[in-house]
């Protein structure tokens, strides 16, 4: 972020600094619901305005699960910025999620 003080910044999707997250859920399972709520909370706090959350229900869209080889749910994939990261679980360990998304304190 520090090396890109350009005007284009903060324009949204597809840009440096914009987070594209895909969350795989299994219907309305408790862990899936909790993962979505944890993720929304985290995005509101740390990625306001520069994050897109895409949810996939593996019970309805098994081809998407096949494509991304999703064996366990909930599973979160950070698609952008690269490198890609996969986080399994209901995202209740906030520090671990922040670290994995390269958003831990002093990093942003």
């Amino acid at each position, binding site marked *: 972020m520090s090396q890109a003080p350009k005007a284009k910044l903060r324009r949204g999707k597809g840009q440096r600094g914009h987070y594209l997250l895909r969350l795989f859920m299994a219907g309305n399972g408790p862990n899936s619901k909790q993962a979505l709520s944890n993720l929304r909370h985290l995005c509101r706090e740390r990625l306001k305005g520069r994050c897109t959350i895409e949810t996939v229900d593996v019970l309805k869209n098994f081809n998407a*699960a096949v494509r991304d080889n999703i064996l366990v749910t909930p599973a979160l994939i950070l698609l952008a910025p690269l490198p890609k990261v996969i986080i399994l679980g209901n995202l209740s360990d906030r520090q671990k999620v922040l670290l994995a998304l390269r958003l831990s304190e002093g990093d942003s």
Partner: protein
Amino acid sequence: MGVRSRPIPKAPTQIAGLDDVLEGGLPRGRTTLVSGGPGSGKTVLGLEFLCSGAMSGEPGVFVTFEERAEAVRQNAMSMGWDLAALEKAGKVAIVEARLFGEEVISGEFDIQGLLAILGGHIKRIRARRVVMDALDVLLRVFNDPRRERSELYRLHEWLMDRGLTNVLTAKAQREGETVSQFEFLDFMADCVIRLDHRVIGQVATRRLRVIKYRGSGFGTNEYPYVISDHGIVLFPLTKAELTHQPLGPKVSSGLAGLDAMLDGGFRRSACVLISGSSGTGKTTLASAFARAASRRGERVLYVNFEESQEAMVAGMLSAGIDLRPSLRARKLMVQTALPEAMGSDNHLVRVLEAMDSFKPDHLIVDAISACVRMGSEQAAFDYLMRLIAVVKDRSITAVLTNQTTDLPDSGEELSGIGFSSVVDAVIQLRFVDAGQEIGRQILIIKARGSGHSNRRESYYITDKGIEFPNSLRLPSARAGHADEKDGER
């Protein structure tokens, strides 16, 4: 309550010998656990079960947690199972369910994703069978016994709800190292099969055991098996021992003199040991038997561990025994192999396959003393015991030669390598110092269920075969060839 003896429905594995042990196959619509160490053949067993189902109207899904799908296809192809073709025909689906090991874990999760993928494939090909290979790899990601159990239970219920006959494979823990997930797997599965792979005396030996089978009987022994080039081959040895046939009627040894000493000849389906040091004529004696039997139209399988077929035929020709007509008439089949060329299990598969295709009346193994070169005395012993069990079960006469050392009167070696109990007749050949020359003598040491001479008799090996100078006869025996019907005394 009612009658409870109705057998549970089973899905045949088509694996040679295994369905016998399982009394028909694996429990249909239920879970079977196959556990074993690396290289024990878990994947092969799973693949064989899946392919045999796919080819007989029960499509199946193969889930691999460890290997790549392509590696599974190649593995199957090396056994002659064309998975790619079965996939194309919509009879098999392979699910590569490999975790990458780089996932970050935060909070609880479950295997709904896997079930969704599995469910999609099952629906698509109308699968009836599911094999999950290396399930332990999936379980490891949970890293918590309680969650492993709950996910296993979820999987089990899910498969049961759909009536899928399923095989789960898992790496066995080393001895003494019990892990709760395996105890739970054992408990959960309706049928548990353990594969054991050991190396004894540099030779790999494999054993299969059925630990439990809810609602069904099963063979309770450890069964040796090999992984041949068309899958797993099992030897239900103990079954053969229980059912082997009684000795049959007399069959000529091919030598009038020896027939006289034996009161008519060998007994059909007996195990005959011909013992003697190098040069005493063991192969000649065995070949005389082979030629005589093939002339009667009977089939002889000759397993030669000492020399090539050409060398054997040439050698016997100089001793007056022409085996070529027997070979041409396909009444004699010679199988040659260097003992050290492969492990004893593979030797056994080779001879059993020859027996299955050639269906011999008589089997000759020349010489069993060479079998220790398969790796160890134990390997040789296992090979011979298993071979003899099969031979007895099929009422095949076995003539075994055994080369003893040159020590005079090494009588204690006669029982070969410790399997005297299965040997029905023992013939000893030896050299004797006859003044100016070396002579040869033959002695019948034992002949179960038959009268026999107790005298040492002289014989010569000439260019017309083995000749007995004395006209031999037992007090009770007629001269010449014995009548084959003369079985009972």
